[in-house]
């Protein structure tokens, strides 16, 4: 089983490259899944998924593929519900699913998306795919999908949250008993600051949720370990010419700091050279436009050359992909893009 994680900032063509890479693997005969953990739904148009469907097999009959290509969009709600049912006892699970703050948490807790990504990946691994390609959120914060589970593990396994949960229950049942005065005082202050309802709802929720979170944390740790193993996982950085040097420095540094294996960097959307000899009577705006294209393109190529020089030997594959005529849409366009990718 192989996992490839695509990272990059917005608008660099991450989804297209991730999908084309998965398509390439499917054409080679593998059973392959491309999983988007970003809600931007770009994958839906790229691979022609039906509306409302969160996982679907892509029709490749035209390409005589010996393997299979599946596309999936992460549904945070479904993944969280699944985790609750999977890790909790039935009564516990029901109490959580019915809790008023459960819905608020899903809707507004920044990071729930990232938290559930690991859970969703785990599910995909269990479904027996040979290659899993992950399309992350289009920001520099995409790495939170890797940080959060561990943050969550720490949070959940710290005695504090347990204490908080238990403290609340004791507070309710036997006021002022068995808790130190100092703890109660601090707790009362916090309640006054944030509002009683808010604090009690959260504590109540967490006092039930933390038992479930332990199950989640255990599996998340295992999955995170898999993502650190260079035999199974490779991280692919995607960027565009003008962002190349800075994006690559950023992601390479962040990945190395977390001990994740960087496999490639791809500079996408490089323009052709645009060297058109104009007749002397060409209208000035046209001459200016062509000169502008030429200048932009030359600057892009310089950026690519610099990146290649900087990372030769540091990242195993430093690659470029040209700008294709239209925004890549549909399997046909991905097939075309896949032809520009270096074979693995």
């Amino acid at each position: 089983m192989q996992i490839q994680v695509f990272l990059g900032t917005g608008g660099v063509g991450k989804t297209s490259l991730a999908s084309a890479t998965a398509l390439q693997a499917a054409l080679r005969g593998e059973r392959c899944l491309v999983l988007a953990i970003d809600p931007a739904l770009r994958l839906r148009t790229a691979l022609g998924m039906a509306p409302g469907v969160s996982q679907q097999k892509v029709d490749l009959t035209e390409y005589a593929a010996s393997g299979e290509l599946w596309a999936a969009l992460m549904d945070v709600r479904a993944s969280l519900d699944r985790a609750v049912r999977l890790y909790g006892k039935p009564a516990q699970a029901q109490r959580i699913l019915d809790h008023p703050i459960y819905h608020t948490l899903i809707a507004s807790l920044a990071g729930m998306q990232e938290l559930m990504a690991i859970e969703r990946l785990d599910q995909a691994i269990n479904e027996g795919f040979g290659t899993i390609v992950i399309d992350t959120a289009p920001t520099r914060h995409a790495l939170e999908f890797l940080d959060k589970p561990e943050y969550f593990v720490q949070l959940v396994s710290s005695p504090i949250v347990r204490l908080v949960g238990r403290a609340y229950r004791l507070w309710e049942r036997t006021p002022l008993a068995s808790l130190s005065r100092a703890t109660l005082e601090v707790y009362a202050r916090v309640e006054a600051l944030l509002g009683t309802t808010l604090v009690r709802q959260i504590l109540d929720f967490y006092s039930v949720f933390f038992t479930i979170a332990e199950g989640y944390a255990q599996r998340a740790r295992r999955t995170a370990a898999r993502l650190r193993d260079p035999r199974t996982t490779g991280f692919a950085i995607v960027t565009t010419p003008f962002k190349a040097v800075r994006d690559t420095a950023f992601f390479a540094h962040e990945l190395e700091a977390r001990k994740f294996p960087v496999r490639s960097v791809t500079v996408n959307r490089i323009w052709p050279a645009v060297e058109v000899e104009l007749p002397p009577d060409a209208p000035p705006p046209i001459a200016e436009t062509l000169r502008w294209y030429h200048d932009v393109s030359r600057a892009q190529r310089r950026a690519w050359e610099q990146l290649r020089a900087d990372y030769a030997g540091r990242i195993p594959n430093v690659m470029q992909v040209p700008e294709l005529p239209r925004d890549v849409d549909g399997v046909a366009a991905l097939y075309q893009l896949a032809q520009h990718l270096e074979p693995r």
Partner: protein
Amino acid sequence: MTGSGLPTTDRPARLPIVVFCGKGGVGKTTLSLALGLGYARSGRSVVVVSSQPLPDLAMTVSLERIRAEDPAAAANLMVTYIDAREILAAMFERQFPSTYVARKVLTSSIYKSLIEIAPGLKEIAFLSRLRELADTRLQPAGGAIDALIWDAPATGHFLETLNVTRKFEMYLSGPFAQTGRELQQYFSERANLLLIPVTTLEEMAVEETVELWRTLEHGLRIHPAGIACNLVSPMLQASAEATLNADTLTGLPPREAADLAFVLDRHRIERDELDTLRSSLPGPFHLVRRVPQWSSDLELLSAVSAQLTIATATPG
């Protein structure tokens, strides 16, 4: 940098906060800093609120170098990041009778866990601070600021931030529900915000921009002041008679013909996407040309700043 209604010597009663929002990678940070630089050069004191912590921002733009290359403008230009955790702590500290108790509560694990977990708290704190900064513009005392620019986070998080004021009111109680209500009102007041969605002329970005505009207007009752189309080619601004088409240049050698075909294709995409925007949204549309090359951040920002004619008059 011109525009009616810009502050001169007398401070007007109210200046909107200029907000650049939109998809990731369309150039919000560049436009924010370029506008800020333009203001700073004309002698106004400007605060740009970055959506990235300053060490992250430094990977995109070197403020140090700008300071070294144009110290006069840099003296008027302050770039800041609002750390919601610090703001929350500061808000709470004021409510405590002694710093000892404050420190004890604010360093307690219960507090630290809760502010991470409680939905929307950090967003509320951020907006409160932004509003506070906006209010300091009205103070006549020295050190007050003339212009405030918010380099907003990418669409999803931006909407979440604005939306949180409502959510708070709906689901939760406590001292923050009241703050949420006030903020909601403040940020939907036309005179308080000059909101400019930024887009590139590419299919995905344009689709997202149209959706963003509609969400702002119908969902949040906030009215954007116009659209900035960033990174356009000079052809888009050229006059109609100079239209570039396949007949413009004939008899080119194949390699050059292929290059020309590429340019024509890019040009058609730009045209089509601008048409889509024009038929979907009221505008006005501000075209900002891509700077083809630059040798320093200051040079890039100056070149962009020179193009920003975005009217910063108080919207009507």
